C-alpha cells in the first residue's frame, strides 16, 4: 500500500511542481507582442506562400507593423484597405495581379528540334542543349510551374502550353521563379492586352521556327496612339498602365501574337474614325 501512495504522491508532486514552474516561467518570460501584428495576420490570406519575401504571413505582419514593408506588400491579398486602417495610413493602390504565361507557340505552332524523353522538369529540359523546342524562349510545357503553384491554378493544355486560370490565380508569384525561361509575369487581372512571346531573335529566325512568334516588325508600335508599345530587342512590349485597350494592335499584328480583352467602344470609334 505504501508504494502506491508513494508513487501517486511523487508523480502528483512532480506534476504540480512542473506545472507551477511553467506557469511562473510563462509569466516571467512572457514576450510582449504588438496587438496590431495579430490583427494584420488575421487580415492576410494565411496561406504562408512566401510571395511577399517574408517567412509566412506572420513575418509580413511583423514587417508591416515595424514599418519595413508597405501595407500592400502582400501580392495575394486583393484588398489592403483594412490593413491600411489598422496601421492608420492611407490605402495605396491595391490592384489584383495574376500570372500570365507569355507564350502561345505550342505543339501546333512551334517546331521541335528533338524528341525529349527526360525527367518531367523544365529546368532539366532547358539545360539539355536548350530544350527540345526550336525556340529557345518558348514554353516547354513540362509543368514546373504547375508543380510550383500552391493553388492549382496552372495546367498544361492539349497544345503543350502552360495556361493560368485567372479565377484561381492569387498572384503569389511562385510560378514566376519556377519558369527557367522567365515566361511568366504578374500582370493586372482582367486579361490585359499582352504580347504572348518572349523571343528576341530577328524576325526571319523566329518565322522559321514558330508561327506565332513576335517578329519585331513594329506594326503594333505604329498602330498605338497611346505610346504604350515599344520595341526592345526585336520584341514588342506593352505597358499595361498606358494601354487603353483599343485593340488595334491585336487586329493588325501579322503573326497574331497579341491577345487580350478589348474595350468594344474604343474599337468601334477607331473603325469609324477611318484609321
Amino acid at each position, binding site marked *: 500500500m505504501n508504494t502506491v501512495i508513494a508513487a501517486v504522491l511523487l*508523480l502528483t508532486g512532480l506534476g504540480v511542481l*512542473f506545472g507551477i514552474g511553467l506557469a511562473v516561467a*510563462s509569466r516571467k518570460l512572457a*514576450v510582449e507582442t504588438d496587438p496590431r501584428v495579430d490583427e494584420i495576420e488575421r487580415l492576410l490570406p494565411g496561406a504562408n506562400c512566401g510571395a511577399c519575401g517574408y517567412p509566412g504571413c506572420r513575418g509580413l505582419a511583423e514587417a508591416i507593423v515595424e514599418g519595413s514593408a508597405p501595407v500592400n506588400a502582400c501580392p495575394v491579398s486583393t484588398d489592403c484597405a483594412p490593413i491600411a486602417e489598422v496601421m492608420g495610413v492611407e490605402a495605396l493602390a491595391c490592384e489584383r495581379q495574376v500570372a500570365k504565361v507569355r507564350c502561345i507557340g505550342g505543339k501546333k505552332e512551334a517546331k521541335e528540334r528533338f524528341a525529349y524523353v527526360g525527367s518531367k522538369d523544365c529546368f532539366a529540359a532547358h539545360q539539355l542543349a536548350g530544350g527540345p523546342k526550336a525556340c529557345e524562349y518558348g514554353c516547354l510545357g513540362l509543368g514546373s510551374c504547375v508543380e510550383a503553384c500552391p493553388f492549382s491554378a496552372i495546367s498544361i493544355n492539349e497544345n503543350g502550353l502552360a495556361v493560368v486560370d485567372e479565377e484561381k490565380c492569387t498572384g503569389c508569384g511562385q510560378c514566376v521563379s519556377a519558369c527557367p525561361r522567365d515566361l511568366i509575369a504578374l500582370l493586372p487581372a482582367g486579361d490585359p492586352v499582352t504580347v504572348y512571346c518572349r523571343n528576341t531573335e530577328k524576325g526571319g529566325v523566329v518565322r522559321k521556327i514558330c508561327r506565332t512568334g513576335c517578329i519585331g516588325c513594329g506594326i503594333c508600335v505604329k498602330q498605338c496612339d497611346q505610346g504604350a508599345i515599344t520595341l526592345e530587342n526585336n520584341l514588342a512590349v506593352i505597358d499595361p498602365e498606358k494601354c487603353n485597350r483599343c485593340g488595334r494592335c491585336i487586329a493588325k499584328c501579322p503573326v497574331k501574337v497579341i491577345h487580350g480583352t478589348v474595350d468594344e467602344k474604343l474599337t468601334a470609334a477607331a473603325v469609324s474614325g477611318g484609321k
Partner: protein
Amino acid sequence: MTDLLLIFFGAIFINNFVLARFLGICPFLGVSKKLETAVGMGLAVTFVMTMASAITFGVNKLLLRFNLGYLDTITFILVIAVLVQFVEMILRKYSPGLYQALGIYLPLITTNCAVLGVALINIDPSAGYNFIQATVNGFAGGVGFTLAIILFAGLRERLEFAPLPKAMEGFPIALILAGLVSIAFLGFSGFRLQALLGL
C-alpha cells in the same frame, strides 16, 4: 576522459540512435526533405537530448530513493515535455533568432522517441553511467541524430531528380533509402574504438 571519448564516438557511429537503435524515425523521415530544415531539426534535437539526459539522470536518482524505479518511463515523458516547453520559452525571450530558426521543430521534439530513448538508456544499470557520462551520451546521441538526418536529407534532395517508377516516388523510396543508409552504418559496428583512438 577515455571512457567519455568512447561513449561519444560510440553513440554517434556504432550505436547511432536512428540508424542502429531505430529510435526517432518519425522526424528522421518527416523532416528530411530539405537539407536546411534537417539541420534545424538536428540542432534542436541535440539541444533537447543533452538537457534531457542531464535532468532525467537527477530525477531517476529521486525515483530510486523512493523505490519507484518502475515509474521511470512515465516520469521521463513528463520531464521531457516540461523541458521542451521551458526551453521554448527561454529561447523566445532571450534568443529570438534561434527561436525563429528552430521554428516548429522545437515543440515537435516532445514526441521524439530518441529523446526518451537516451534518457532510458542512460539509467540502464548495465551501462552504469555517472552524471557526466550520461550527459555526454545524450549530446553524442543528438550529434548522431543530426549526422544521420543531414546525410539522409542530402540523399533525398538528389533523389528528387532520379527517374523512378511512379509507384516508388516519394515515401516508398525514402523507406528503402533509410534501410540502405542503416545497413551502411552497420559497417561501423565492427570497429574497435580503443584501437582506433590509440588507447
